[in-house]
């Protein structure tokens, strides 16, 4: 017994020194050590459990951080300090918010479907957390390495909108139902450009696996420029289309029509209070982080460093730095743009984004086949052709979207 224990201690010290020597792989090494302690038949379950615990704690912490950043950032943009009462500079505000949510009364409307009303936020959080499972957070650090990870991500991500509809339906409230219907309409419209934009990356790599998509973006062009997809013409346009779709998918401003407080009270959240409301809130933020994580993976080079001489910084640090940058961008946009009207929302998706993403797909194909060009000015020529192929249609699409429509004068007839 004593020998076994001293053996464990020796291996633990070895693992720790290995983790310190190579911080890039520290989480992987640590997990492998913890798993090796358990007997063979338990190792799979324990490994999964460690991944789940790590994901929930990291993203739970990020959720808390993000709510604080959002409130502080919005405050600064509106020239006020933001929450500054709880703890130094208000950094303990998320704790106070959480306690408040926990102690609130949980109200279920009398005529509501109590079971569905309960299960909707649970499904929502579950599906949001599922989407986190396939993202590569660092070198060798994808919790599940699926061959069709992108497909899994979108399948699980689409289920969140279903849970939103469930919430709206189960509440038996007209505002909830209207909000839920808007959410479904929005999802169907914006899932398309989102998918088409991410297909470009899939098309070039030839794999749905997010790990191989990140691997393909490693290395540097001319020794300085990282080989990220966003630094190609199709990747740049794809990234912008993807981000617009991501804003709509995560129901964030300016696409927060499902919970437009000026029209629908709080949409599907109207009949929710207490911890169920907190779950909705958490799912929204985790969904936002997940889709930002996917944008980082597909277009911003995943966990790869932006400059060669910073390659020694652990890979997961780069991933989370990029993730938080995108999250800040979400907050920045929320503070800037007003909410779209329902018809503007649909027009933007169907008349502008979807045609543009199809054209972008064509440009991706061109980029793939022109990679073999070997004459002197090959790269500028490729850029020029791709730019023209995207900019000209964009100009026309933008023009027709911006044209002012004149409506016939509306006449009202009243009962005599």
């Amino acid at each position, binding site marked *: 017994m004593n020998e076994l224990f001293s053996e464990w201690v020796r291996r633990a010290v070895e693992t720790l020194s290995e983790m310190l020597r190579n911080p890039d792989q520290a989480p992987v090494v640590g997990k492998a050590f913890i798993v090796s302690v358990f007997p063979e038949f338990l190792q799979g379950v324990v490994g999964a459990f460690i991944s789940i615990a790590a994901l929930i704690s990291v993203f739970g912490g990020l959720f808390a951080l993000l709510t604080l950043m959002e409130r502080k950032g919005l405050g600064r*943009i*509106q*020239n006020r*300090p933001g929450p500054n009462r709880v703890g130094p500079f208000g950094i303990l505000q998320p704790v106070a918010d959480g306690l408040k949510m926990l102690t609130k009364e949980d109200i279920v409307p009398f005529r509501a479907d109590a079971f569905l009303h309960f299960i909707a936020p649970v499904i929502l959080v579950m599906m949001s957390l599922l989407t986190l499972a396939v993202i590569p957070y660092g070198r060798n650090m994808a919790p599940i390495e699926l061959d069709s990870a992108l497909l899994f991500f979108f399948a699980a991500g689409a289920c969140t909108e279903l849970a939103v509809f469930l919430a709206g339906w189960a509440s038996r409230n007209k505002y909830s139902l209207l909000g839920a219907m808007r959410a479904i309409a929005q999802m169907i419209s914006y899932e398309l450009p989102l998918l088409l934009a991410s297909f470009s990356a899939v098309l070039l790599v030839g794999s749905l696996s997010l790990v191989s998509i990140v691997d393909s973006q490693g290395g540097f062009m001319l020794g300085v420029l990282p080989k990220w997809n966003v630094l190609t013409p199709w990747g740049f346009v794809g990234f912008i289309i993807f981000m617009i779709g991501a804003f709509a998918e995560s129901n964030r401003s300016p696409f927060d029509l499902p919970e437009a407080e000026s029209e629908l009270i709080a949409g599907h959240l109207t009949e929710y209070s207490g911890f169920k409301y907190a779950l909705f809130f958490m799912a929204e933020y985790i969904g936002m982080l997940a889709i930002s994580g996917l944008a980082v993976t597909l277009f911003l080079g995943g966990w790869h460093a932006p400059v060669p001489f910073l390659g020694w910084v652990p890979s997961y640090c780069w991933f989370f730095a990029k993730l938080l940058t995108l999250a800040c961008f979400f907050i*920045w946009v929320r503070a*800037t743009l007003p909410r779209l009207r329902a018809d503007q929302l649909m027009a933007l998706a169907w008349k502008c984004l979807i045609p543009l993403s199809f054209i972008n797909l064509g440009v991706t194909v061109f980029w793939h086949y022109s990679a073999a060009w070997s004459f002197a000015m090959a790269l500028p020529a490729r850029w020029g052709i791709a730019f023209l192929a995207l900019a000209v249609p*964009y100009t026309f699409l*933008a023009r027709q979207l*911006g044209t002012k429509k004149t409506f016939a004068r509306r006449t009202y007839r009243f009962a005599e």
Partner: protein
Amino acid sequence: MLGTGIIRGLVVTARNFLGSFYDRRRFVTVFYPEQKVEMPERFRSFPFLVYDGEDAVRGLRCVACKICEKNCPPQCIYIVQQRDEKGKPLKHPAVFDLDISVCMSCGICVEVCPFDSIKMDKVFEVAESARFEKLLFGKAALSKSNAYYRSVSPADAGETDARLEEEKKAAAAKAQAAAQKKSAAQAQEPQ
């Protein structure tokens, strides 16, 4: 061009964000419990009763005429006139209750008071732990000195004091004239 407006908007918000860190003058809010905004001269919260001199009971200007009670739109004032042992009414309120949970700060009681005895206060931090009993202010809680009134709204108080002084002088002059007339009449009568 579609999209340029969004970028311009993002620049505006970014400038506000960065500006709020180095320019304190951008801040439109104050840290309320620690910092307070000076209330404007005409700001009013709830009425109080003014007394002259040091004694809150004897110096009270209120004569229990009940004009304010009758004119109060939400009916938040309740007055009972004081009577002496024989039941003769005195020019003093025995009870003066004002329910500030009902009061709507209209200031009509101040307008109608012929004795300048009820004035508007500037205290707005009146939060209490009990909803009914602690928000019903009695005579003792309502009585505040003229010096206090002068400190909260100097312009109005100065105007009132000047007018009262004038009236006092006029009354004194009139009394003197009446006394002279009387004494003159008395001097004439024996003839």
